[in-house]
């Protein structure tokens, strides 16, 4: 017998001893109704949240109009020997990055996208994509210019940009 079975068996025996059978059934009925209606909401939300971590994927990651590129500004790694998630061989992913949110038309949700640059080889040159939709964080004006997004990597040479889904946007 598992834990809940045990607890419930004990509980219903105690109840049965203390109350009439009809009273017990009434109590159980109330619990069933309550149990069925109240927690449905969070469970439905749990199911939603689980699916939300993994976006429904549609579209071509080598095309500038791919949904994740809504706030990108650079060469698409997918055209440079890498992918929307990975750097091409011989380059290194920058830990310091742009963050934005993009709307995924395939599942109707907004996701947090991290545009990590790949560094260490000269500019890839293929699939230049500049879309400045979507919000970007407000950066300190005095830091913007000297914040090279290839900082934190061994080479500061910019090669291309990825677009990695890092979370679900929290809607107000």
């Amino acid at each position: 017998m598992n834990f809940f079975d045990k607890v419930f068996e004990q509980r219903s025996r105690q109840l049965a001893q203390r109350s009439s059978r009809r009273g017990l059934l009434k109590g159980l009925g109330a619990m069933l109704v309550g149990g069925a209606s109240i927690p449905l909401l969070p469970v439905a939300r749990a199911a939603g949240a689980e699916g939300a971590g993994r976006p429904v994927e549609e579209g071509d990651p080598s095309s500038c109009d791919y949904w994740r590129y809504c706030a990108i500004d650079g060469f698409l790694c997918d055209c440079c020997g890498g992918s929307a998630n990975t750097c091409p061989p011989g380059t290194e992913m920058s830990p310091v990055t742009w963050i934005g949110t993009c709307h995924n038309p395939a599942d109707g949700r907004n996701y947090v996208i991290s545009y990590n640059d790949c560094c260490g080889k000269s500019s890839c040159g293929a699939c230049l994509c500049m879309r400045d939709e979507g919000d970007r964080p407000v950066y300190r004006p005095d830091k913007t210019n000297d914040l090279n997004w290839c900082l934190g990597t061994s080479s500061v040479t910019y090669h291309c940009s990825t677009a990695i889904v890092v979370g679900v946007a929290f809607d107000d």
Partner: protein
Amino acid sequence: MVRLLLLPVLLWSAAALAASDDSGRVVFDYQMNCQGCHTPDGAGAGSVPAMQGHVGVFLQSQAGREYLVRVPGSATSALSDERLAAVLNWIVYEFAGDSLQSPFTPYTAAEVAPLRKHPLNEVDDYRQHVLRAIAGADARE
């Protein structure tokens, strides 16, 4: 019976979800406003200092506590006072680790509001000054 047995599980998950709802907002605020520079685990890179395993050191002095709010990344962020306080608390809980040496009193909107009106200009100097004072106090103990 199956339904009945599920009840405690469901109630438990409801409580767990209510908690994760709040943290969902905080994580999102951190991701959108801070993570680009501070990286997902607070390790930082280049000129962005590591908060991972270090940020708690600042909480050993009042000047250091204020520094965490007045540093431009915090002070000039687009977050409301309330949400900035929540993000700072999350940073401390999530990243401070062993660097937090005494019980932490969470930041509140009321504490953060006046401090962030005075963002630091000479951040590096001020940071050094704060850390030296804390190290000095430690040495005297």
